[in-house]
């Protein structure tokens, strides 16, 4: 289990997180949602160990991260960054192979090669393996990093302790079209179904509601509520957390909730929307 207990983070006099408690079990996908600036990315960085909380601690299988070796931690959890940037001409395979670096000297070359190939197949970038990273599109780059973090926590011949690994995904759907958004989320989901934990920061409550086992709603640096999608994604919560009016329906096939922004009931009436469409510069003769 990867767990953060009573986390407080202050930076430059601002409280970024106050008393946050969050955990993820093997086999579970937890979505972090909340408005911009709610502290989602900060919490993810605390969970990863990159940000040391001012108070509180993060534990991996009941051992504090601070008591573990950095490489040891890196073999058990990987982090997909929000804005991956790299201007140097590494090939796609080179970048994915970097994921295996915490296993250097422990995992065999052939096992690494197999894991790297499998990770590239899983994210659908096998055909790009020899391309130089800077020549890729934003969506392709995102998938390269997804493959890299999958390779990082894949079991080689060096560790078969049967314990879950953890993926922390910071807005993995950024820059992706709808199909690739779904693909990225499903990749994470498959990973969790293999007995691993996933924490994913999402902007779209519908993606969270559609895929997560549990949703944690963060507002103003504190947990507003958490629970299964049916309990969390409600009209009241969307108004309280995001300040939006929305209707919540049920997906008839999965039974999961989804929201539809209620444009009509706010400033824009159907009539004014029709008018604005008519007067848009593109449609004028």
């Amino acid at each position, binding site marked *: 289990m990867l767990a953060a207990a009573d986390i407080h983070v202050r930076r430059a006099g601002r409280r970024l997180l106050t008393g946050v408690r969050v955990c993820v079990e093997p086999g579970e996908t937890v979505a972090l949602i909340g408005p911009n600036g709610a502290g989602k990315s900060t919490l993810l*960085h605390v969970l*990863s*160990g*990159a940000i040391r909380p001012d108070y509180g601690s993060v534990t991996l299988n009941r051992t504090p991260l601070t008591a573990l*070796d*950095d*490489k*040891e*931690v*890196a*073999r058990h959890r*990987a*982090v997909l*960054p929000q804005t*991956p*940037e*790299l*201007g*140097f*001409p*590494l*090939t796609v*395979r*080179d*970048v994915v192979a*970097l*994921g295996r*670096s*915490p296993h*250097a000297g422990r995992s065999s070359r052939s096992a690494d090669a197999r894991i790297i190939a499998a990770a590239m197949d899983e994210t659908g970038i096998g055909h790009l*393996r*020899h*391309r*130089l990273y*800077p*020549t890729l599109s934003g969506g392709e780059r995102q998938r390269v990093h997804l493959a890299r973090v999958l390779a*990082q926590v894949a079991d080689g011949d060096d560790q078969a302790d049967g314990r879950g690994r953890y993926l922390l995904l910071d807005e993995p759907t950024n820059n992706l079209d709808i199909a690739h958004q779904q693909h990225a989320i499903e990749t994470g989901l498959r990973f969790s179904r293999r007995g691993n934990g996933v924490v994913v920061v999402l902007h779209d409550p519908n993606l969270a509601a559609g895929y997560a086992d549990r949703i944690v709603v963060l507002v103003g640096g504190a947990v507003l509520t958490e629970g299964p999608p049916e309990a969390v994604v409600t009209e009241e919560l969307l108004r309280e957390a995001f300040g939006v009016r929305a209707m919540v329906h049920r997906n008839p096939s999965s039974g999961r909730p989804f929201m539809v922004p209620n444009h009509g009931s706010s400033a824009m009436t159907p009539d004014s929307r029709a008018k604005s469409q008519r007067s848009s510069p593109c449609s004028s003769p």
Partner: protein
Amino acid sequence: MTVSPEPQGRALGSPRGGTGLLTVATVFAVLWLAAFAGALLWGPVPLAPGDVLAILAGIAGDSGGAGPAPGETVILAIRLPRALLGMAVGAALAVAGAALQGLFRNPLADPGLIGVSTGAALAAATAIVFGGTIMAAVPFLSPGLVIPVAAFTGGLVVTLVVYRIASRDGRTEVATLLLAGVAVNAIAGAGIGLLVFVSNDQELRDLNFWMLGSLGGVTWDRLLPALPIILAPALALPLLARHLDALLLGETEALHLGFPVERCKRWIVGLCALAVGGAVALTGVIGFIGLVVPHLVRLLVGARHGLVMPLSALLGSALLLIADLVARTAALPAELPIGIVTSCIGGPFFLWLLVRGRHGGTW
């Protein structure tokens, strides 16, 4: 319709480009050997390759007896130490350049950016202008060593200052490191300008020559203590190749991959300061090798530091020896400062890279 001459932006370093990598390495090695041979053979005193080999075999075998072969002094006292210095300095500048470009994640970084070159230059200029006073203060230092020792110390001290400015709470901001380097370089530049202003004609000539760099006048007793200082870091830096690859992704990403990022940064800056400080102490400031060589290598084999650093060492050595050949033969009997030669070749080449880069190529 745009036509891209780049074949899908592939790198030779990729498995399929294996033969390309081998070709590049072979060409560099041949170039390096040729440059070394040229450095020994070419010069005002013409020597046959056979004689040179016999002389070199003489030191290796320590045969003694036979008496001095023709040109033995020229080779052993002048050309060999000069060639060794050129090789070491070329390798050190190029490897340090590659490492710092990786650390700063900026292909335009130059070894001088951490302040080591201008720090060394300021100290050397001080030693040139106030040499008499310094020698009176440290009488145990032989006169020939005052300037190199001052330069080396100055380079390290200024790098340390830059590094401390950029560090807070045990963390070093790489962006601040770069900016602090720029600022400290400007301050040191002003100091050098002031020294130039107060210097007399002879000092001015010395200063000028030092600022433009030269491999000339090196002797064994200056070379031998400096060689390990220059070469050991250049050989050690490639051991950090994986770390540098990870740092290319970003510091947080390297941290997430389990790399000891802060320790890494200290090692990289420290090793670069030693290598470049040692080099500048003996040769003065030689521009463009550290900037252009890693660029060229990345263009040929991709960005993996495990390839870039060793190949940069090889190419840097070769190019500096070739530049030195030009410097000492282009204006016979006088000698051009080598910095003029490297900048003359490196500048236009770099511009070409920039223009080329704008056409969709990558660094």
